[in-house]
């Protein structure tokens, strides 16, 4: 699914990734850890086609990172970032309807998805009024609706409450089972004991540890 060889990502002359090698198989769950500033977010962005490869080579989901169609790649990716990931002025409902229509999905799944992430009672409130954890949940709903082949989740636990984390673990289990590839960046180990992720450790823009 993902192959990176000596991947270097420079932004403003600074190497976010400094020659990283990585191989991820389809249908697996991997967790990236590492100190603050190690390059976790940058790695996820590179794999999602959200930042360009400066040197080295890489293929994600059969698309070449250097020469391929990054727009096509992005379309296959579900992304959950540190920040909100929707239009602040639209409600949860409207945000999801926008995503669904953009991807030509049926819009009648929305109610179900909102229920799963526990936002039904906040469905028609402008997204900017949501609390930090509710924003996270909306972000999850946005991906859930899309069911992409590759999930890139940047610190999904942050600001989720207990119940949210349990739900998240379950969700990831389901998703991996159904054949999708999931790459999570995290500072805490996943809580679920049924998930057996591969754990990659980053430091200085390189993979320095790899444990299954």
């Amino acid at each position: 699914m993902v192959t990176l060889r000596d991947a270097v990502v420079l932004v403003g002359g600074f190497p976010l990734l400094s020659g990283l090698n990585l191989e991820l198989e389809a249908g697996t769950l991997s967790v990236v850890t590492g100190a603050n500033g190690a390059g976790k977010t940058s790695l996820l962005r590179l794999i999602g086609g959200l930042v360009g490869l400066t040197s080295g080579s890489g293929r994600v989901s059969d698309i070449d990172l250097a020469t391929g169609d990054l727009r096509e790649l992005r379309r296959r990716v579900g992304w959950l970032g540190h920040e909100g990931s929707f239009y602040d002025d639209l409600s949860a409902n409207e945000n999801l309807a926008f995503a669904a229509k953009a991807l030509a999905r049926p819009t009648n799944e929305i109610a179900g998805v909102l229920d799963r992430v526990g936002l039904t009672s906040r469905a028609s409130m402008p997204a900017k009024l949501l609390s930090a954890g509710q924003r996270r949940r909306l972000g999850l709903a946005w991906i859930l609706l899309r069911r992409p082949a590759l999930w890139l989740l940047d610190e999904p636990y942050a600001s989720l409450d207990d119940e949210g984390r349990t739900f998240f673990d379950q969700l990831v289990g389901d998703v991996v089972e159904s054949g999708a590839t999931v790459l999570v960046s995290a500072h805490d180990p996943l809580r679920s004991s049924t998930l057996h992720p591969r754990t990659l450790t980053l430091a200085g823009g390189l993979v320095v540890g790899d444990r299954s």
Partner: protein
Amino acid sequence: MIRTALLVAGKDLRIERRSRVLLWQVLPFGVMGLVLSGLALGPTHAGHSSAGPGLFYLVMLLVTLLMINRSRVIEGSVGTRTSVATLGLDPAGVFLGKALALAVELWVTGAVLLAGAVLVLHTALVGTLQALPSVVVILAALAAAGTLYGALSGGGQGPATLLPVLSLPAFAPLLIAGERSFSASLHGGGLWQWWVISIVALAAYLAVGILLYGVLEDS
């Protein structure tokens, strides 16, 4: 492409309708701009019906700048743009949609300002009505060009100050064409060359936008 365009335009107009920025902030600004430019020119110049077209387009230009900015701000923060990027929307459709939404807003503002020009600047009513089609085309061209330059000057809440510098030189020909054709319908005179210019400009900006909008978005 058309489907994406309608989706995007719908989203933009919905946010606009919800926030009522157009009604409460942009329209009053436009009217005030008209009155103020009249003042700045002093009574001798402004009384002239001949100042009407120029001032109308000057104010519309400022309104356009404001609205382009707004159209970029509603695209949200880095996080939002990242997520939306993963929807893989067709850039040509996004361009058309945003331009369409902007054009609708500009038409509304233009209609109000034209009424204002007739009332305040004593612009002749009949001539103004004759000028309407050309105003519609020019404003659409402004919207297309504006969307393009909005993307050029960087998405999101980036430096909103870059936009005027980039876009003003490009708006100048539009401004001139609009002003001349408006003046021509007021006082008589050759119209067709301004028509040609404005329609060519509209077509050119639409074509460039459809072809190149994808190139401009943050990678």
